[in-house]
């Protein structure tokens, strides 16, 4: 428990562009513990998705080291599942098969078909999508697709779950219901989650810590807010809660006073 699951040490990321080298991130130090839910928040272009991709292993850092379970992150792998912003379900497979593709990859060697099938069904039932599991992605709504995307990630039983603005493309009402659902699933599974968001309420509602990043280029971690709200959290009760309001105010203060974007 005291040994962090993910350790990010002095990580920097520089991209080579046509206009020369572009430093997206520098001097990032962060530890993420088992069972913790961490949000990355900041103005667009601050490198929060870049940091998530580094943890996922989709890109490699220019400087510094990232460790997951004491091993260097050298590439993407199913122990670090990713929920992409636009769901990324494969359109030629049913919801069931989309989840099965992931489950088969992770558990296929150890378990037989019937057991894999149970896993897929359980994952889809967890996000209340068992009724539509044999539908194709184009037959269901955007919110439902994202539920399946979340089910796919959870079904892999990853060490850590990475979410890149998972609800960014959804309308406000759907987003709220998915946030509640995610809160429930996280409580049930005790998952470790890192989530990129630019929605302040979402960050406070879902996370244990909110990592706030300064504006890019060469973004660093500005401040970290601890959200000391007990779980399960209830959206309506929290609206009145003083501590919720304080966290919210702290994040808003950082984003809109300290890091106000210069008029672009």
């Amino acid at each position: 428990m005291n040994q962090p699951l993910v350790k990010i040490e002095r990580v920097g990321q520089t991209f080579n562009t046509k206009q020369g080298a572009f430093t997206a991130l520098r001097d990032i130090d962060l530890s993420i513990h088992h069972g913790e839910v961490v949000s990355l928040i900041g103005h667009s272009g601050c490198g929060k998705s870049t940091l998530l991709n580094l943890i996922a292993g989709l890109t490699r850092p220019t400087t510094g080291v990232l460790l997951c379970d004491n091993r260097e992150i050298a590439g993407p792998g199913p122990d670090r599942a990713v929920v992409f912003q636009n769901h990324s379900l494969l359109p030629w497979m049913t919801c069931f098969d989309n989840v099965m593709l992931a489950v088969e990859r992770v558990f296929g060697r150890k378990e037989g078909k019937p057991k894999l099938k149970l896993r897929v069904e359980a994952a889809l039932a967890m996000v209340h999508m068992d009724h539509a599991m044999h539908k194709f992605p184009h037959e269901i709504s955007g919110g439902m697709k994202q539920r399946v995307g979340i089910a796919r990630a959870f079904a892999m039983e990853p060490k850590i779950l990475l979410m890149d603005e998972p609800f960014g493309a959804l309308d406000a009402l759907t987003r709220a219901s998915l946030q509640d659902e995610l809160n429930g699933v996280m409580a049930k599974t005790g998952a470790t989650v890192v989530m990129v968001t630019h929605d302040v309420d979402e960050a406070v509602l879902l996370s244990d810590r909110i990592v706030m990043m300064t504006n890019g280029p060469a973004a660093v971690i500005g401040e970290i807010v601890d959200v000391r709200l007990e779980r399960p959290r209830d959206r309506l009760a929290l609206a009145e809660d003083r501590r919720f309001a304080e966290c919210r105010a702290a994040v808003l203060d950082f984003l809109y006073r300290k890091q106000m974007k210069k008029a672009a």
Partner: protein
Amino acid sequence: MSTVVALKPARVAIEKEEAAVEQKIEIAAPAVAAPVAATPAKASRLVGALKEIALNAIPPLLGLGLLIGLWGLLTMKGGSIPSPAQVWAAAANLFADPFYSNGPNDQGIGWNVLSSLKRVGIGFGFAALVGIPLGFMLGRFDFLSRMFDPVISLLRPVSPLAWLPIGLLVLKKADPAATWTIFICSIWPMILNTAEGVRRVPQDYLNVARVLNLSEGKIITRILFPAVLPYMLTGIRLSIGTAWLVIVAAEMLTGGVGIGFWVWDEWNNLKVEHIVIAIFVIGIVGLVLEQTLLLLARRFQYETR
């Protein structure tokens, strides 16, 4: 209002004949009739469906009618071009026995069409066998793509018939040489469209593959192939279209049995009606090929994101 309701039952009975004429009243009628009784509403829906079919069929029929009408007008005074009626009579005669065979130079039109289709099928099949894997490789590896790009750009605009002598030289026989021209003309769209499809596979899908650490085999069968399939089918459709254009010309040059050769043979026999029939047959077969592939392509159009 009430007069319309009273008229309604009688109207339904005669509506089929008047469908095209009575548009204005028809629009108002279902709304009025619905609360009165279920059967007239159902009947008017049927009439509506029939009307829609009729409206959809009228423009194309008109177009074809215009074509045949003009042709009839132009050939009214006689001359070397046969009139529609003469062609119709010849066609009735010809299609009475499409599959006769009096030796290699005198066979029914059915045999001729079938042997042309067979050549197209073989040449096209080999082109798919070579072109699709090649397209995959060009799309996947930028180096190969840049390597082959000038070669393809140079060879693609060449009429496939220019390759016929090479085919005759290497293959020694006329029949495989015609197939060879089909191979040549089919392969370019197949390579280029497949390569383009591979290049356009969304990065998201590839990221899914990377996060899952899928094996190269799984990536190809579960992600690349289905993502590229619509592009491949476009390539196939374009290939078949060109192949069917080219086979007629190639067979005129090589002889043997085939619709192209048949056209040339009938020209030598001065049976102009038969040439006109061949034009229609070639057109219809081409249309059927195209539509079949369009249907197939629609089957694999998953995306409506």
